[in-house]
C-alpha cells in the first residue's frame, strides 16, 4: 500500500467510516484523483471539529444519562 493510501485508510478508520480491513478494500476501488481528494480532506479536517460515531448517537443527541 502506498503512503497516501495508508493516510486515507487511517483517516477513514478514525472517523468510523470503515474497519481497517474494509478501508483497505475500499481504497483499492478509488481512482488516484479520489485518493488525492480524500488526502486533501484529511488535511482540511485538522482544523475542523469532526465527531466520530462513538460520540454522536442518534441525530447528534447526547445519550440519556439515566432512565427507568
Amino acid at each position, binding site marked *: 500500500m502506498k503512503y497516501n493510501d495508508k493516510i486515507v485508510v487511517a483517516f477513514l478508520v478514525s472517523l468510523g467510516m470503515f474497519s481497517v480491513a474494509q478501508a483497505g478494500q475500499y481504497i483499492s476501488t478509488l481512482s488516484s484523483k479520489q485518493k488525492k481528494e480524500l488526502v486533501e480532506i484529511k488535511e482540511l479536517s485538522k482544523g475542523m471539529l469532526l465527531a466520530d460515531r462513538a460520540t454522536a448517537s442518534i441525530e*447528534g443527541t447526547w445519550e440519556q444519562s439515566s432512565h427507568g
Partner: protein
Amino acid sequence: MVGGKKKSQLSQNEKKLIIYSVKKHKTKHVLFIGGEPTLYIREMNDIILRLSNMDIKFRMTTNGHFARSKSEALEVLSSINRLSGVNLSYDRLHAKFLPEQNIKNLFAACEELKINFSIIMAMMSPMDLVLLKKLNKIGRFTIMPQKLLPIGSAKLNNIGYKYPSFDEGVLKKLCPNRRVIIYMCGQGFTSCCSSLALCARPGRVIHHTVGHHLNSEFYKLISKYTFRKMMRELGVSGLKMLPEDSAPCVLCEHVFRARYGESL
C-alpha cells in the same frame, strides 16, 4: 421525538404522555426531529412550556429551509422556547436544494442567540466527505458524519452507505441507541431509530409507554447484549452475514427478522 407521516400533529393525550414520561424518567435532553420540526413550533413550545420547571436541554434537527436570511433564521429560532441546540441535516441530497447562504444564516443566527450549532452529514460513501470543503468555509462548528442507513426511501432507492465486506467487529458492539428513548408520533416509545421501528408489529419494538418499552424483551436484549450474544439468545447464531450488516441497525433488523420472520 420523531414526527410521524401518518398524522399532522400530536394529540393532547400524546403530549400528556410525553410530558409525564419525561418527568418520570428525569430526562435531561430532548431532541425534536422530523419530518421538519420548525413546521410544528406551537407543538414544540407547548411541550417545552409544560416542562418549564425541569433542567432539560432542548435541541432540534432541521433542514434549514427557513434560514433564507439571518433575520428569518433569528425569528424562527427565537420563537422556540429554551432552544439550546440546532443540528442541521446536510448531505449530498440536501446540498442540491439548500443554498449555502441558508447554512451561513443559520450558523450566524445560532451564534447570535448563543445556541449550539452542529451539522449532521448523512453519507452514502466516504467520498461525500468532500462536502467538508464547502462547510469549512462557513465557520467552525461540530460536524457529525453519519452513515446513511438503508431504510425507507433510502432503501427503495438503494442509496444506503455501502460496505465492501462484512466487519466482524460489529458483533462485539451493543446497540448504539440503547440509552436513548424515542417517541414516534402516533405510535409510541422505542429505542430504535431504524427499520425495525418502521416495520415491526405494535408491541414488539414500539410500546405505548416508556415503562412497557423498558420491560420489553426487545429492550432487554438490545440494552444488555452485544450483537453476538443477542444472536445466541435468539437462536440465530449461524446467520449468514452480508456487507451491509456491518451497520449495527441493519444487523439488528437482520437478526430480528431471522428470529421472528413474518411475525415481526
